[in-house]
């Protein structure tokens, strides 16, 4: 793979008070590759995502996206470049109908540029996106208030929100948590298709079995440090990784 990396991270560090939530992390990612980020709770996975997407400014280190230095970028500018993220805790607009939740990203500068579309057209696009992430066709669910959605649906709404922005790099923070086994099974083919279409994927997950079906490479974090990197099957054999996972509640792999 002589490809120029789409994402290059060099010595990324973030301290909250005295504690380092990201400690000198470096890695690269080639376009179209799917990366998994795993590690025990509190190991700094979400912080790493926040750093890449501009929601948190680093203490030290650099982030390059397609060769461009984007260290400390404003979140909306990261989206403009094609970096889209989901949130671990998805907070929809509860008092809006489900499909209206998607009108907001669909009317953003990036979506308007790539999709065009006027008031009214967007409703149709929104419904279509919801079907894509597995909302039943012709059901009433998209018209109900988002506040009434069960957790698994909320996660899929979060995914639809990301897809509405047509990302070049899609970063998903624990998409599978809160989803049922059948929901996960129905989303995996979609993620595989997104990957096939050339989108670079970054996934933070605790569901390792399902994660390893999708990703090409995995990074293991512990106390903010990268303790391993490589192919999933190799990495999981490493002693440091097994130690980090031992005793933590995430040994679960269904």
């Amino acid at each position: 793979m002589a490809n120029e990396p789409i994402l290059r991270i060099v010595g990324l560090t973030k301290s909250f008070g005295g504690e380092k939530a990201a400690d000198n992390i470096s890695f690269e990612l080639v376009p179209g590759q799917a990366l998994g980020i795993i590690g025990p709770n509190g190991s700094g996975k979400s912080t790493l995502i926040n750093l890449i997407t501009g929601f948190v400014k680093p203490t030290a280190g650099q982030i390059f996206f397609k060769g461009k230095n984007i260290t400390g970028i404003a979140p909306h500018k990261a989206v403009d470049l094609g970096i889209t993220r989901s949130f671990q805790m998805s907070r929809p607009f509860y008092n809006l109908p489900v499909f209206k939740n998607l009108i907001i990203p669909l009317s953003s500068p990036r979506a308007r540029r790539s999709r065009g579309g006027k008031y009214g057209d967007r409703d149709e696009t929104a419904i279509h996106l919801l079907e894509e992430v597995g909302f039943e066709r012709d059901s009433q669910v998209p018209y109900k208030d988002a506040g009434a959605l069960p957790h698994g649906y909320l996660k899929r709404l979060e995914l639809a929100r990301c897809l509405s922005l047509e990302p070049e790099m899609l970063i998903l923070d624990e998409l599978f948590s809160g989803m049922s086994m059948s929901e996960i099974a129905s989303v995996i083919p979609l993620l595989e298709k997104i990957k096939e279409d050339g989108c670079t994927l970054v996934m933070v997950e605790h569901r390792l079995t399902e994660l390893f079906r999708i990703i090409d490479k995995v990074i293991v974090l512990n106390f903010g440090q990268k303790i391993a990197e490589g192919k999933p099957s190799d990495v999981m054999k490493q002693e440091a990784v097994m130690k980090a996972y031992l005793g933590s509640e995430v040994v679960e792999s269904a």
Partner: protein
Amino acid sequence: MSHLVYRKERVDRGIKVRSDDIFILASLRDLSYATLPKTLAIVILLLFPLLKDLVGTYWESVLVTTIVISLLALSWDLLASAGLVSLGQALFFGVGSYLTGWLSRTFALTPIMSIPLATLVGALLTTLILYPVLRLRGIYFGLITFALPLLLSRVIEVTKILGGTEGLNKIPPLPNLTTELYILIVVLLVCIYAYRRLITSDYGLVLQAVRDNDRAVMAAGFDIQRLKAQAVFLAALPATFAGAFLTHHFQVVGMQSFALDYSILPLTSVIVGGAGTFFGSVLGAFIMIPLSEFLREFASLRVVIYSLLLLIFAIGLPEGIFHFIRRRYQQFERMTALEGESDKRGK
């Protein structure tokens, strides 16, 4: 079976099923039911200036104040839709007032020129002034807006610019009270209409989303600082207009343009009428301003009665009068058998 217990039940009328700009109405009767309140309000408003001999100039000028405060309340309501809670509508009012005063004195502009100019430039200026504090949330933004008009009037007092404590007088007048009223009424109606359109558009949805969950709006690729600045500009327009207009109405402008009244009265209007619909804040102004004029008869007790009424409204109808009336209007009562045997319509 023999002894049925009846209970009152409130049912939604099948009207006002509004989905995205399309009215789904069952009949002409429903149509008139839905449009009657608006039509009636507009007709009364348009007739009022013609009844000068009947109501007297005093109450006509009360209408001027009422509409001015309505515009400030509308402005407040739009800001609040974007999550910006203003405690200082007097900032916009005062900037608009002084701008038109300064423009007409310095460049000898007529009101037709200076009012629109002061409205636009004033909105731009206040947006610039507030830009650095848009990051602040909730009460912090409120406190800054509360302090700014007081600060500006102090600056004018100390530096003696813009006439200092004397203010600027000999501001060119407007034609006559009837014309003034019609200008105000048209501006008010246009503003309500424009704001209602704006807030139900996709753009309006985004503004409200900034209020509800700014993180998600950022993640969707919006510059929320810019959105908030746009909201301030759009909200400032009717407020700077109100200031500019009243300056020509009184033909003077002074430090009282930054007075607390112009911050508090719009706020009480919104509290009484109810936020979030624009109709509510205007209704609130149309209740509270004439009421406060009426209470002048009670001299020093005025403030006490006014505050008490405000308290009663705030506690008794926290959603605001407008929401209450609308709900009542859209429902009808019927009697329902508790056993669920059969519905019997009452009334």
